[in-house]
């Protein structure tokens, strides 16, 4: 599903964000990616969704080598990945329903499919009663549910979430993570970036830790406590 092999990333300004990252995430897995601020977590995510290219090493996502991908094939790869971000990224003037339907519409789905699929995912994330509301009328937790629904709606094989709980209080954060876990149990591979130890500790899951652009720990149930070491 995801395979990073000895990946280096140096930004244009000379910042060495990744210095040899290697890890693998198999189909159906659920994993946290943790690390302190500036450790390179978002850089990993950007490489996985093809927003940036690696300076060295190999990045393979859903069977596609991200370094050799033709620009014209990129949109089709992205359809197999659902993305969730800290800032929700909803369209302000569209309703909840329209925000989710939009993701189907822009990849050319038929209106019949849209009418069937959107209510289903809205119900799955528990936001169907707010379908007609605008994002501004929702709480942060509710907005993030809409974003999760949108990430799900095209039935991706992989969901990648970069700090999905960064703007939420602990209770809402837990709800979103439980939702992502439920989605994983329905068969989708999930990678969640976070640096909130208390949250990670609630789950008995694989935790990949990076620090200074290197993987420093990759184990079940073990949140790598970078501050004390």
């Amino acid at each position, binding site marked *: 599903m995801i395979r990073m092999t000895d990946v280096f990333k140096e930004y244009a300004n000379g910042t060495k964000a990744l210095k040899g990252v290697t890890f693998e995430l198999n189909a159906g897995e659920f994993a946290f990616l943790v690390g302190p601020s500036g450790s390179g977590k978002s850089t990993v995510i950007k490489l996985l969704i093809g927003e940036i290219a690696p300076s060295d090493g190999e990045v393979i996502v859903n069977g596609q080598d991200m370094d050799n991908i033709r620009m014209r094939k990129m949109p089709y*790869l992205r*359809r197999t990945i659902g993305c969730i971000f800290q800032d929700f*990224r909803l369209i302000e003037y569209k309703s909840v329903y329209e925000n989710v339907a939009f993701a189907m519409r822009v990849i050319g789905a038929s209106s019949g499919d849209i009418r069937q699929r959107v209510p289903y995912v809205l119900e799955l994330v528990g936001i169907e009663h707010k379908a007609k509301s605008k994002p501004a009328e929702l709480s942060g937790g509710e907005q993030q549910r809409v974003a999760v629904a949108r990430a799900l709606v095209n039935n991706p094989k992989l969901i990648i979430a970069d700090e999905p709980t960064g703007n939420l209080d602990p209770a809402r954060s837990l709800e979103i993570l439980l939702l992502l876990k439920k989605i994983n149990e329905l068969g989708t591979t999930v990678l969640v970036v976070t640096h909130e130890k208390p949250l990670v500790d609630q789950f008995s899951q694989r935790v990949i830790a990076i620090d200074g652009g290197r993987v420093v720990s990759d184990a079940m149930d073990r949140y790598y406590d970078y501050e004390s070491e």
Partner: protein
Amino acid sequence: MLWIGITIMKVNRNRTFYYLKEGFSSIFAHSLMSFASVCIIAAFLIITGLFIMIAVNINATIGDLEAENVILAYVHDNQSENDARNLEPNILAVPNVSHVVFISREEAMESFIGRYGDTDRYRDLDPSTFRHRFAVYVYDVGYIVETQNALRYVQGIAAVNANPAIAGGLRTLRNIVSWISIVVIAVLLAISLFVMQNTIKLATFERREEIAIMKMVGATNAFIRWPFIVEGFILGLLGSLTAYIVTWSLYDVAARGVAEFAGFIRLVPISSNITVQVILLFVAVGFSVGVGGSGIALNRYLKV
């Protein structure tokens, strides 16, 4: 335009509908921006249009003056009127001659007397004082000197009288007007493209998050572009239509005013084929500014 339509049709009817709907609804969703774009396209086209009309009229006036600038070719005294008339084909054979009018001695005398009045004084004037002559009209006054020289070699022609100084002056004037028109229109076009591109840049900047989301969920660049192209096309078309209506209304008012207060000036009528050319120009400019502007403005957001 047609092939674009046909191409979309072939791709997907459903999708075509989506592009049109998105293009239209985005015009209304960003109504202020859309209004501004239409106004900018219209304003520059109106200025351009009026300038073109001024240039066209100056050109036409110069053309009229040039047309009156004839060459007089005098026939030898020893030729009878019949012989003189028979010279006409030889004169017509001279390059650059468009048409000739034969003027007999008698006609020349009458016209002379008519011009200077006082018939009595010239009562005894013998027509043989005058020569038979041809008024020779040319296609291009730029070659008036060459034509004049060629006419001198026509058998039976005694003298040729032209006014190359006036012709040269008119020609220079026409050149100056043409060049000023070209420069002003080019400058106006550049300005309107620049302003339009920035307007659409603003519009797409407003929608950069939407575009980023579309890229994120896997929309193709073409799919993202089409609604903007539709939008740019509609805005461009509205702008050029507005400009067309306003320009002709203003021109009509001007033409009436001129006819009333300065009847001696002749304005080029609206019904001429200039209308078609200006419409084509307006639509072409509106289309390219609208579609081109949105295309250029979008590029930076699609490179992710």
